[in-house]
């Protein structure tokens, strides 16, 4: 008890007596506090202070009692998981790409090269009747029957041709 101010009723003995009765009653009420109340309250209060000090938000979502290293480990785990998922997604998208790391210009150049190769095959000098085709000259004559005849007429040549081409 830390009252320093004196009672203003000391001049009236009856009021002073009532005050003394009230003080005695107050003391009795304080003495009725259960044993160990202070210790129990101190433990809970210390815990509450630490929890609220860490982070009010974390305390509210139930992490108030967790130690610092546990929180750090949980955060590191979350970051690691996010990075791993990001890498997996990145790798998956690379696998699904037909020309990884090839620019559009290189792709166009490669396309043109393949086209010219095809035309070179199509203009094989063995077939004198075959007219070389170009993109500017559509409607090339149908030479499928000649090729069919050629393939079946000389099996040895056909085999070597296919070996070269394929």
């Amino acid at each position, binding site marked *: *008890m*830390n009252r320093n101010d004196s009672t203003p009723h000391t001049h009236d003995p009856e009021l002073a007596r009532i005050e003394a009765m009230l003080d005695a009653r107050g003391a009795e009420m304080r003495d009725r506090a259960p044993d160990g109340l*202070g210790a129990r*309250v101190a433990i*809970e*209060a*210390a815990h*509450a202070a630490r*929890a*609220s000090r860490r982070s009010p938000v974390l305390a509210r979502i139930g992490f108030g009692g967790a130690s610092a290293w546990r929180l750090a480990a949980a955060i590191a785990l979350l970051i690691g998981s996010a990075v791993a998922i990001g890498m997996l997604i990145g790798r998956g998208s690379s696998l699904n790409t037909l020309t990884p790391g090839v620019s559009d210009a290189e792709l166009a150049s490669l396309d043109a090269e393949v086209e010219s190769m095809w035309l070179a095959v199509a203009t094989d000098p063995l077939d004198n009747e075959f007219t070389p085709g170009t993109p500017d000259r559509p409607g090339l004559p149908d030479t499928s029957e000649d090729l069919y005849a050629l393939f079946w007429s000389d099996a040895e040549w056909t085999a070597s041709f296919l070996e070269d081409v394929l």
Partner: protein
Amino acid sequence: MSAQAARIAMTAPDPGVAPGMGEVVDVDVVQRAAEGDEAAWRTLTEAYAGRVFAMVHARCHNPELAEEITQSVFCTLASRLGQAGYTERGKFEAWLFRITMNRLRDEMRRQRRQANPTDPGVLTLMDRRATDGEPPDDSGLHLRERLGQALDQLSEADRTVIELRHNAGLEFKQIAQILKQPIGTVLARHHRALRKLRPLLTDMQEGANS
């Protein structure tokens, strides 16, 4: 801040107050408590838990509930200290008992919707008297009972001042801070409450004697 000013409680106990309760709790203890130091909290609860309990018990008449409320008061205090630190320098007690009053008000509001439990101590005594045929003793315990009954007849505002003064053991200045009233109002209310108690106690005394 001087060492004297840094103290949030005073050393000289009031005459008529139990000796040994004039604890000194300085700012350092409160700051350590804000950091969650259990020893600091023990110091604080040794100084104040009994006083908070007395305040609460006088109203709710249930020791278990009073203990629960006392615990929640200190947990609220701890949370606020932990979040914002101790900012109300020199007003720690007023702050603590303001939290107590608010918590008590909430509890009383809740209890108004329910039946009030009877103090188990009173029930035990009534039971003992009924079984042992104990003659009525009108001195010690019944004086407290009469005082309790007389206090029940005071207005809420008068009773609050009396309880803060005599159960919590606060100064009038601190009571004025808690209730946010001028100190003159608090002094007048206290004086008026004592004058109201005088005839009530006299009537009860006469009733008991006749």
